[in-house]
């Protein structure tokens, strides 16, 4: 049986940003009734391709055909009307409005200028029914879980007669069951002949749902493959353009070590954030923190760094009692904290890569002692190449970089301070597998060089791979501290998280 004609075809797409060739001669096609995964590392051009397709950006070269007709969308609205609907990673809905309002907003059924709410509710319920979702559509959106909100976003996208549905990392904030629910919906839509373009960092999910995939690397097309014909190892190799040996090297667990105590927290706590906890971090030691989202992992990091005030307890650094009232004081004691919230608590988006990297060092020196420009350039060049930050142009505004590279910029900001303790809160979340491996390797190297690291991650494998000791959190309480020896497995960790006691 011959494959059906593509509903969407993009040919030789090129897109240039100042200093960056985001897309270079990329071909892409989408068949009706398929789930097509768009794969690539951060910065490979996935987001740009989607934005070009939905009219957010215009193209410098190439052509786009929808159902055999050449099109050029001046804006997202035009793309939607032509049948290309998009659900972005961050749900663009209003949590304070009702489900109905969220679904029909902008297209409310009206009579004589008055909104017909009954009709609107009926239509919203019907659309959600198509997704097998039967909820109270007059309740506010905030009453529902992120997964349901995601479905509502999809329902909203489908309200127009969609022929192409683009899902940009829809699963990054969903748990396992919610992902399964989303996939059920995607299969249902597929049966209705809708072409789905799916972007995700989770390879298992890709293999579960996608029929076909297109791989991009550095803005160029690597190729289009049937999912059933490409193994995961080959896929990763094609995405990062090199072999997985680099990743494998870290599989050995780090040797345990006995350094001098560097940071000793005794009964440190803050009401409504984290119960008083006692934790010692030694020089050259990687301490992992494991626990569910909201279990108090970030709160521990913020207390240690002085980002929040501790209500109780005391803190000793290098044996000396200290009271850290501000991050500034913590930095003076050579602590560093890479927040999980890159955009709000890390980057200054307007500033360049160089300025973002030297920021903490400059702040520590005070404004009257500027870092000479040549020294800045040396430092920045050193870390841009050491951390493989791309594009390697220090004068780019940092907001132009992809998530993984932004993360590396933040790492560089702290590494030039040569801290004694580096606190990393979810440093690998939302970044691609290549950058992830680089950051993991870096953590191992740093601790080998004597730096203490507090490593927070939701991925237990990652915590186990890197840590000498693991602290387990549950319900805002540090419930266990476990040495990472041969007996500790992700299973045992998960059990501790679930039961709240060391097994």
């Amino acid at each position, binding site marked *: 049986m011959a494959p059906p004609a593509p509903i969407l075809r993009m040919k030789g797409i090129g897109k240039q940003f*100042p*200093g960056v060739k985001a897309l270079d001669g990329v071909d892409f096609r989408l068949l009706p009734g398929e789930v097509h995964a768009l794969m690539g590392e951060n910065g490979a051009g996935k987001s740009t391709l989607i934005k070009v397709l939905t009219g957010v950006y*215009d193209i410098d070269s190439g052509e786009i055909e*929808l159902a055999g*007709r*050449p*099109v*050029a*969308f*001046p804006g997202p609205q*035009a793309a939607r*009307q*032509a*049948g290309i609907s998009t659900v972005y990673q961050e749900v663009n809905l209003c949590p304070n409005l009702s489900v109905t309002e969220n679904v029909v907003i902008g297209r409310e059924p009206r009579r004589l200028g008055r909104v017909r709410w009954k009709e609107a509710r009926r239509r919203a319920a019907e659309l959600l029914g198509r997704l097998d979702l039967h909820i109270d559509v007059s309740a506010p959106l905030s009453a529902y879980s992120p997964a349901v909100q995601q479905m509502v976003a999809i329902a909203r996208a489908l309200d127009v*007669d969609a022929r192409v549905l683009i899902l940009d990392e829809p699963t990054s904030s969903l748990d396992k069951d919610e992902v399964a629910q989303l996939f059920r919906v995607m299969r249902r839509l597929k049966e209705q002949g809708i072409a789905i373009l799916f972007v995700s960092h989770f390879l298992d999910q890709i293999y579960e749902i996608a029929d076909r995939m297109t791989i991009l690397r550095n803005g160029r097309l690597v190729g289009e493959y049937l999912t059933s014909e490409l193994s995961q190892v080959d896929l990763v190799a094609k995405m990062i353009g090199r072999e997985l040996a680099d990743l494998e090297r870290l599989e050995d667990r780090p040797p345990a070590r006995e350094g001098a105590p560097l940071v000793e927290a005794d009964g440190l706590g803050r009401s409504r954030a984290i119960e008083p906890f006692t934790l010692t971090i030694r020089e050259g030691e990687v301490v992992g923190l494991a626990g569910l989202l909201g279990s108090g992992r970030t709160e521990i990091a913020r207390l240690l*760094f002085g*980002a929040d005030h501790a209500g109780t307890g005391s803190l000793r650094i290098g044996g000396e009692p200290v009271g850290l009232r*501000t*991050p*500034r004081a*913590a*930095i003076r004691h050579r602590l560093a*904290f890479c*927040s999980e919230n890159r955009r*709000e*608590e*890390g*980057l*200054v*988006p*307007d*500033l*360049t890569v160089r*300025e973002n990297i*030297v*920021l*903490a060092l*400059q*702040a*520590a*020196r*005070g*404004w*009257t*002692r*500027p*870092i000479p420009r040549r020294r800045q350039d040396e430092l920045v060049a050193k870390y841009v190449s050491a951390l493989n930050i791309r594009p390697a*142009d220090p*004068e*780019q*505004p940092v907001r132009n970089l992809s998530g993984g590279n932004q993360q590396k910029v933040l790492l560089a*900001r702290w590494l030039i301070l040569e801290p004694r303790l580096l606190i990393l809160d979810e440093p690998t979340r939302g970044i691609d597998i290549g950058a992830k491996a680089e950051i993991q390797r870096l953590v191992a190297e740093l601790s080998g060089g004597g730096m203490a690291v507090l490593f927070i991650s939701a991925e237990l494998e990652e915590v186990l791979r890197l840590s000498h000791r693991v602290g387990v959190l549950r319900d805002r309480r540090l419930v266990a501290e476990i040495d990472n020896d041969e007996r500790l497995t992700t299973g045992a960790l998960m059990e501790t998280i679930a039961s709240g006691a060391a097994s």
Partner: protein
Amino acid sequence: MTAPAPAPASVPASVSPGRRLLGHRLFWPAVILVALLMINPVFTDGFFKVELKDGHLYGSLIDIVRFGAPLILVALGMTLVIATRGIDLSVGSVVAISGALACLRISDLGDQNSAGGVLAAAGVALALSVALGAWNGLLVAGVGVQPIIATLILMVAGRGLAQLITDGQIITVNSAPYKLIGGGYWLTLPFGIVIVLAVLALTAFLTRRLALGLLIESVGGNAEASRLAGIGARGVILTVYTFCALCAGIAGLMISSNVSSADGNNAGLWIELDAILAVVIGGTPLSGGRFSLGGTVLGALIIQTLTTTIYSIGVPPETTLLFKALVVTVVCLVQSPAFRAKVFHRRRRPAGASPVAEEKVRVSA
């Protein structure tokens, strides 16, 4: 003097010099200024003529800079405040207070022409300005009052303070040394221009040679991230409000010296709005972050040129304000990249856009 020109650095070598010029952020303010200047010779003969008389430079261009000097000063301070995502509405009042206090002290002098006495008077006036700026900074950084409210307090109260100082009267002085600040000459240049150049050089030095600029842009660009990076945001904010008031204080001396009198009611009236406008025209966004000192100077010169132009082309007095508003609107629009993209971009690709229109019709049918 301005920012270390990020635009050219990030543009690849393949881009033509013409496009690079177009992309420079001072390009449009400069075009507007030149366009405004070009209108004048039509109505005023010898508009561009600058001549040397008695060792002093004279000419319309010199006058624009000279009369614009106080505005440039106030706008320079305002630039730094706005870059931290703040705003300072009290500069007009500080202008009035500074002028009033200086004139009061001089009028109390036995010999109004004593240079020492005048210097002391100016010093006291500037010290009070600094204190007022520190008060603003404390309210914003220490107490956490929103900048527009915090400085509104002093904007209103400051006028009262100025009138208290002058006892509700207009104080006139007859002091040659004081007259020098706003009306004198030094090395052929009006002294006001010399002061502006000095303050501009100082500001550029503090922000671009030293690292104050980076910290200001960081605090304005992302306050929480800056705090976590160890920047003492309070200190930075206190510094910029203090600096802004100092600039306003100097402008106050200049204005009162120029007319040899202090008017608590009208000195520096509405100058805060002109200053904010100058900053915005110069390309510093009100949302904080990146700022451009060169842009602000251009912006202030645009406003002063506009005022001069209105007089020279003889716009009837009753329509002056309306005319000014219209021009300012146009200037702001031309200066806005978003607006330019909307207007010029659409026109450039009519061929690409038309198939979409067909598509739309077909789909909705």
